[in-house]
C-alpha cells in the first residue's frame, strides 16, 4: 500500500498550524493563488482587473499617506512637548478609523475568503484561523491601519528614543488587536446578516447607534450664541472629561499607559498595561474563533427556519400556501422586478449597503453643518445635491453588475422566450424604485438638518437626477454585460473580478457628478442659478436617449457575449 495515508492513530490528530502538513497546505494555497493570477492574465479582462488593482492601490496609498504623515507628525509633536498621554487621541482616531473602514466600506474590507471550500481537505482549525487573518492583513483597511500605526510609532520613537522598544511592542500588539477586532466584527456582522431575525435586530441597533451618536454632536444645536448652547457645550466638555478618564481601560488608553509608564521607568506598570492589551487581543481572538469554529464545521447559514420533523410532517399534509405576490401585476418585467426584490430582501449585506449611505448622511451631516468653516455657504446651500450623490453609492454594486447575483439562474434567461432587454428593464425599474426611496429618505434628512433648500437648488437637483439616473443605468447595463462577475449576496466580501467593474462604475459616476457640479457651480458663479436647470434637463433628454439606445442593443450585445457571460456568472 505504498503511497497511501498511514493508518490513523487511535487519538485525535494533532495538526498544529505550523506543522509540516499545514505548511504544505499553505504552500499549495499560495501556489494556486499564483497560478490563478498568471492564468487570469491570459484574458483581456484579467489584465484590466490587474490594471484596476494597481490604480486602486495608488488611490488608497494616496488617501492613506496624507493622514499618516499628519498622525506621525502629531505624535512626534505631542511626545516632544511632553504630552505623551495626548497621543491617546491619535490612537483613538486610528482605532475608530480602522474599525469604521472595515465595517462601513466593503471596498476597504478586502476579500473575506470563502474558506468553506477548504472543508473537504484536512485543514486544521488553527490553519483556518491563520488563513482568515492573512486575508485580513491584505485588506486595504488593515494596510491603511498598519501604515498609520507605523507612523504614530515612528513619531513617538523619534521624540522619545528611549522607549522605542516599548512603543514597537505595544503598537504591534495594538495593531494585532485592531486586526482581530475588525475581522471579528466583519465575521459576526456576516453571520447576523445571514438570517432574517438577527438581520432585523442588527439593522435596528445599527440605525439606533447612528442616531444616538448625533446626541453627542454639537452641530445639532442650532444657535451657537444662545445661553442654552453654552450649557450644552459645558455638558459635552464634562462628558469628554469623563470619557477621557474612562478611556484608560480600553485598548488605545492601555497602549498609551504602556508608553507613559515606560517613559517614567515604571516597567512593571507598563508591562501590566501591555498584559491588559494582550488580554483584549486574546478575548477578541476567542470571539473570532467562536465564529470561525462554526464555519469550519460546515455551518449552514440559510434563511430557512429550523423545523422539527413533526412540523415537517404536518406541513406535508397541509395544503401548500401559494405565497403572497410582492407586486400585483403580471408579465416578465414584473416577474423580474419581483424576483430581484425578493433576492434583495433576503440579502443582508445588500440591505446593509443600502443603509450605509443613509447613516453616512446622518453622521457626517452633523459635521457638515457645524464643523469648520462653511466656505461661501456652499455646504449649506448645496447640501441637497451633495447628499444625493450618496443615494447612488448604495446601489453601485446592484446597478453595475445587475446579472452577477443570478448564479446558474443566468442560464434561465437564455432558455426563456423573454428577451434579455426585458430582464434588464425589470432590474432597472427595481433599482430606480430603490434609488427614489433612498433619495426621498436622504432629502428628508437634509431638510430636517439644514432646512428647506432654495427653489433653484431643488430644481437643479431634480434636473441632475433626471440626467444622472438614466446615464448611470446605461453605464451600469454596459458594465453588467461587458464586465460581469459572480456576486455572492450572502457575503460582505469583495468578489473576484469586482475591482475592474467597481472602478469603471465609480469613474462613470464621478463624471456625472463633475458634469452636474460644473453646470450648477458655473451658473451660480455667473449669478444665474436657474440657468442650471434647463441645461441639465437638456442633458437629461440626451441621457434618456442614450439609455434607450443601450437598452435596445442589449439583446444583440448579450448574444455576442453569451458564452463569457455564462462562464463568468454560472461558473
Amino acid at each position, binding site marked *: *500500500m505504498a503511497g497511501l495515508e498511514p493508518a490513523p492513530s487511535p487519538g485525535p490528530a494533532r495538526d498544529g498550524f505550523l506543522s509540516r502538513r499545514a505548511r504544505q497546505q499553505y504552500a499549495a494555497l499560495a501556489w494556486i493563488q499564483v497560478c490563478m493570477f498568471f492564468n487570469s492574465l491570459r484574458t483581456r479582462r484579467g489584465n484590466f482587473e490587474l490594471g484596476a488593482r494597481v490604480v486602486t492601490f495608488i488611490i488608497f496609498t494616496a488617501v492613506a499617506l496624507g493622514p499618516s504623515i499628519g498622525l506621525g507628525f502629531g505624535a512626534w509633536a505631542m511626545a516632544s512637548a511632553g504630552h505623551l498621554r495626548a497621543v491617546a487621541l491619535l490612537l483613538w482616531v486610528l482605532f475608530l478609523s480602522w474599525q469604521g473602514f472595515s465595517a462601513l466600506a466593503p471596498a476597504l474590507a478586502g476579500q473575506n475568503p470563502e474558506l468553506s471550500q477548504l472543508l473537504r481537505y484536512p485543514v486544521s482549525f488553527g490553519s483556518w484561523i491563520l488563513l482568515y487573518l492573512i486575508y485580513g492583513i491584505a485588506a486595504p483597511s488593515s494596510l491603511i491601519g498598519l501604515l498609520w500605526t507605523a507612523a504614530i510609532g515612528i513619531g513617538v520613537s523619534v521624540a522619545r528614543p528611549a522607549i522605542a522598544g516599548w512603543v514597537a511592542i505595544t503598537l504591534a500588539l495594538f495593531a494585532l488587536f485592531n486586526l482581530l477586532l475588525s475581522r471579528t466584527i466583519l465575521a459576526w456582522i456576516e453571520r447576523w446578516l445571514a438570517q432574517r431575525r438577527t438581520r432585523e435586530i442588527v439593522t435596528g441597533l445599527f440605525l439606533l447607534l447612528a442616531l444616538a451618536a448625533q446626541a453627542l454632536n454639537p452641530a445639532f444645536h442650532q444657535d451657537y450664541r444662545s445661553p442654552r448652547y453654552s450649557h450644552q457645550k459645558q455638558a459635552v466638555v464634562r462628558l469628554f472629561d469623563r470619557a477621557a478618564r474612562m478611556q484608560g481601560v480600553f485598548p488605545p488608553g492601555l497602549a498609551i499607559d504602556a508608553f507613559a509608564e515606560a517613559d517614567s521607568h515604571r516597567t512593571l506598570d507598563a508591562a501590566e498595561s501591555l498584559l491588559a492589551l494582550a488580554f483584549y487581543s486574546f478575548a477578541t481572538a476567542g470571539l473570532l474563533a467562536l465564529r470561525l469554529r462554526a464555519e469550519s464545521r460546515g455551518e449552514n447559514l440559510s434563511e430557512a427556519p429550523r423545523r422539527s420533523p413533526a412540523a*415537517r410532517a404536518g406541513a406535508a399534509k397541509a395544503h*401548500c400556501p401559494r405565497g403572497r405576490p410582492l407586486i400585483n401585476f403580471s408579465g416578465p418585467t414584473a*416577474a423580474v422586478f419581483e*424576483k430581484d426584490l*425578493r433576492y434583495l430582501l433576503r440579502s443582508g449585506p445588500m440591505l446593509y449597503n443600502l443603509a450605509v449611505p443613509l447613516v453616512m448622511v446622518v453622521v457626517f451631516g452633523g459635521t457638515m453643518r457645524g464643523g469648520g468653516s462653511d466656505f461661501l455657504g456652499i455646504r449649506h446651500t448645496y447640501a441637497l445635491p451633495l447628499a444625493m450623490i450618496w443615494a447612488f453609492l448604495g446601489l453601485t454594486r446592484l446597478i453595475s453588475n445587475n446579472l452577477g447575483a*443570478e448564479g446558474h439562474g443566468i442560464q*434561465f434567461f*437564455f432558455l426563456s422566450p423573454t428577451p434579455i432587454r426585458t430582464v434588464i428593464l425589470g432590474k432597472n425599474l427595481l433599482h430606480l424604485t430603490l434609488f427614489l426611496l433612498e433619495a426621498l429618505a436622504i432629502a428628508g434628512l437634509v431638510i430636517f438638518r439644514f432646512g428647506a433648500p432654495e427653489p433653484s437648488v431643488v430644481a437643479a437637483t431634480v434636473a441632475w437626477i433626471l440626467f444622472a439616473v438614466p446615464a448611470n443605468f446605461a453605464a451600469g447595463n454596459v458594465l453588467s454585460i461587458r464586465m460581469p462577475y459572480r456576486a455572492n449576496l450572502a457575503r460582505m466580501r469583495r468578489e473576484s473580478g469586482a475591482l475592474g467593474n467597481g472602478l469603471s462604475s465609480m469613474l462613470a459616476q464621478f463624471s456625472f457628478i463633475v458634469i452636474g457640479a460644473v453646470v450648477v457651480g458655473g451658473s451660480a458663479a455667473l449669478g444665474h442659478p436657474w440657468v442650471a436647470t434647463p441645461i441639465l434637463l437638456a442633458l437629461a433628454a440626451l441621457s434618456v436617449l442614450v439609455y434607450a439606445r443601450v437598452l435596445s442593443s442589449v439583446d444583440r450585445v448579450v448574444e455576442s457575449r453569451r*458564452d463569457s457571460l455564462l462562464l463568468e456568472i454560472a461558473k
Partner: protein
Amino acid sequence: MLFLPRMSPAISVRNLTRRFGPFTAVDNLSLDVAAGQFFGFLGPNGAGKSTTIKMLTGLLSPTSGQIEILGLDFAARPLDVKRQIGVVPEGLALFGRLTASEYLRFVGRMYGLDRDTTNHRTDELLDFMNLAAEPKKLVTDFSHGMQKKLALAAAVIHGPRILFLDEPFEGVDALAAGTLKAMLQRMTERGATIFLTSHVLEIVERLCSHVAIIHQGRLVANGSLDELRAGVAATLTGPDTGQKLTLEEIFLNVVGGSGAATSEEPVQELSWLA
C-alpha cells in the same frame, strides 16, 4: 458508422459544428428527431453531448450549421423556438434565493402564462414532485435530487412540445425517478418529444425508443434500439452474436472500447491504491 432511417423531424440539425479555439467539440453533426420520440443522446465524457444540447437550447451559439426546432430556424426565430421547448440544463438554471413556489411562479410568468394558470400549475407541479412539504425552504437549501425535480417542474410548466433533459435522473431517488419516468412517458404518448442525455444506460434502454451516440464530437450511431442492435450484431463474430445485445454492449462496441477493458486485456492498476 451506423445511420438508419427516421420519421419527420421535431428537431433537425444540419452540419452543426462548435469549436473552442483549436478544439472542435462538435464536428459537423447532422441529426433528426421525429415528433413524439423519446430520444437518448449518449456519449463518453467529453464527447460533445452537453455542447450539443446547449446549442440546441440556445445556451451556446454554434460555430456553423443549422438547427430547426418544429420547423423553425433557431437562429432566425429564437424566441418562438424557446416558447416551444423546455430544458433541464447541466447547471439546472435555478435561482437559489427563491422558494420553490416563487421560482415556478417566476418561470411561468417569464413564459407568458397568466397569473391564474401559473399559480394553478405551480401548485399542481409542487404536489406532483413532492416539493410542497417545505414551502419556506429556499432552493439553495434543497438537496440535489429536489433541485433536479424542481428544474424538471420548471421545464414543463408552460407545456412544451419538446423537452431537453441533461442527466435528469442523476441524484434523484428511485421513488421520484419512477414518478418522473411515468410523467415523461405520458408526455411522449401525448405527442411531446423528449431529448435526453444520461450516463445511466439502463434508464436510456428502458425509456428511449431511439438513440444516437456521439464520440469525439462526431455522430457514430443513430437509430432505434432494434436497428442499432442489428447493426452492431452484424459487425460481431463469435458465439454470443445470437443473444440480444444490451445498450451497454452496443455503446462499448460503437465507441470503440475506449475506456472499456475486455477480459483479454490486462486491467491497468494503481499500485498505491488499496
